[in-house]
């Protein structure tokens, strides 16, 4: 039940910049994902909010109150750590009770709340076991339970399900999303898995090297990546990027084999540029079509409902994702046609996006 804000927050450890000049506002009741590769500063953000680290500059505001220098206990946030941080010498039940006992909640109330949380997370039968005797998934639930048992201003979670196997992860993320909607609390969720972030977040923030690169809904981020970095990291299989140059409103690929008939960007000053098109926006045909690139089939990756066709054009391998099951032969000459309406144009220097498909053409 709180809005969480960071204003101009920076933090360095010695010479290493952990995060720099971060401005984020997470409104009440939002499922907010922080996404980025390892060591991009996303965990640092949570630690700053929690008060486990002090920012070198900037302000931390929780529920309208300046909390920059308050100790963690005063901030009323709850946290699920990546390694879960269950107390190994306590049973699951004692772990759940801990936050309430420390806040001197009356015993009857503690019993009621623990029972309720245990029920919600289906761990009632596990309360007498110590964490060492629980499975990964069960430990997960206990850790989440410990953060739910109180009524904090917001929940913070640092890759809480990354240790689980793929199947369980898919289930847990849906369950978390359901819990957040039922509890109606702000949830800040850190992950390095783009699919996880996209599937659960109301809004997401993409970080790179301690800076925020883009904040937006998953759709915005996917369809209109602000920089080439965002385009690369969101979406799987990853986007295809082709280097070239924009000159007098025309794009020329550095590798002549990759000449793509992309629309002109009339308002763009000359620059080295990169165009990107996502694998699902590419068609692979045996016949020549307008704006097609000639290539050879490099590898085939059938995945059941869809397949990835890797084709080699010039020195590059381009990835296309086609529905159904592929009917190509290795080495076979083919023609690939990107959907020009969904191409993105980035400046090579800095990676800023200056246009997408027809938008670019229209100026």
């Amino acid at each position, binding site marked *: 039940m709180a809005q969480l804000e960071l204003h101009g927050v920076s933090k360095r450890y010695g010479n290493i910049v952990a995060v720099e000049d971060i401005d984020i506002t997470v409104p009440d009741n939002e499922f907010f994902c922080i996404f980025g590769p390892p060591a991009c500063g996303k965990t640092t953000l949570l630690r700053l909010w929690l008060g*486990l680290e002090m920012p070198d500059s900037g302000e931390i505001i929780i529920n309208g109150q300046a909390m920059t220098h308050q100790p963690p*206990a005063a901030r009323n946030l709850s946290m699920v750590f*990546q390694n879960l941080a*269950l107390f190994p*010498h306590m049973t699951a039940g004692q772990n759940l009770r801990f936050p309430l006992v*420390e806040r001197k909640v009356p015993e009857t109330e503690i019993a009621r709340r623990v029972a309720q949380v245990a029920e919600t997370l289906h761990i009632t039968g596990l309360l007498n076991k110590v964490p060492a005797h629980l499975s990964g998934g069960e430990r997960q639930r206990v850790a989440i339970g*410990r953060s739910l048992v109180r009524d904090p201003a917001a929940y913070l979670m640092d890759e809480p399900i990354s240790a689980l196997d793929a199947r369980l992860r898919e289930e847990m993320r849906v369950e978390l999303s359901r819990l957040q909607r039922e509890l109606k609390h702000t949830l800040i969720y850190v992950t390095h898995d783009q699919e996880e972030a996209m599937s659960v977040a109301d809004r997401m923030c993409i970080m790179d090297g301690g800076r925020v690169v883009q904040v937006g809904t998953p759709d915005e981020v996917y369809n209109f990546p602000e920089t080439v970095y965002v385009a690369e990291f969101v979406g799987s299989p990853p986007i295809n990027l082709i280097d070239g140059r924009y000159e007098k409103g025309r794009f020329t690929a550095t590798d002549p084999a990759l000449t793509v008939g992309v629309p002109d960007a009339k308002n763009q000053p000359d620059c080295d540029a990169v165009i990107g098109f996502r694998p699902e926006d590419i068609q692979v045909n045996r016949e020549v079509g307008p704006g097609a690139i000639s290539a050879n089939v490099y590898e085939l990756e059938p995945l059941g409902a869809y397949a990835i066709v890797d084709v080699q054009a010039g020195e590059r391998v381009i990835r296309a994702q086609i529905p159904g099951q592929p009917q190509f032969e290795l080495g076979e000459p083919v023609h690939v046609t990107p959907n020009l309406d969904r191409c993105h144009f980035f400046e090579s220097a800095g990676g800023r996006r200056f246009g997408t498909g027809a938008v670019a053409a229209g100026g």
Partner: protein
Amino acid sequence: MTATNRLWFEAMRYTLIVAALIIFLIPIAWMATLAFKPVAEWTTAISEITWLPKNPTLGNFEFIFTGETDEVVITLPNTATRPIFASLVVASLSTLLAVVVGTLGAYGVSRFGVGKNLPLSVLQLRLFPPMAVMIPVMMMWSYLALVDTFWGLSLIYGIVTLPFSFWLMKTFFDEVPREIEEAALVEGCSQWRVFYRVTIPMVKAPLATTVLFVFILNWSDYIIALLLTRKDWVTIPVYMNSLNTAMTGEMYGAKAAMGLIAAIPPVVLGIIIQKHLVRGLTFGALKQ
């Protein structure tokens, strides 16, 4: 490796190990059997080795505990009871001192980064030959009237074994995942409360190891007790080596009995904490 090679290798292995075991055990066995030998068997003639006592006797133990026995004509002015008591009291008290101070200090350094030079300063305590520093300590102790008192001896033992407890606990604390303590902080604990409600229960087993390890060290000292005790708080090793008399010369059997009593506790405790011995002996630098 073929099967025959394998067999040869195993045979070699066992031969070498058993040889080593015999060499390692002879001195201990000799002392242990000597403790049960009557006076006549204490020394041996060239012609015959008496490995096992021919006429086993508890006379040696009787002698050191009661001061007299049928076998020797002399009586002992001081029995072993008091040194054993002294060793126990002093080793326990000094262990308590070293472990409490060391644990607190190690946590302060490991967690809050205060006292950056402390770990190395503490280690220095261990570098010096005790003999070289003991002169001023002796002067100081006599000036403070600490010589031959149990707390005087405990204090210096506690200081001398502080490096072990400090470094051991420091490496154990370094290994406690930070997030577990942070989780307690987020849930409303103060840092001191985290220390005794979360961290200490988590390192219970290592703490016990440290206690036993430090106890062994304190129990084993000779030189400090030699310098700082006179009569009342003489410890077992000092007492043992004073077991000579003008009339009969070396009291071999009595000494062996005393030595056996002194040797048993560290060996037993050492086997109990075997798993952590490497860590203890290398100040936590190596794990097993």
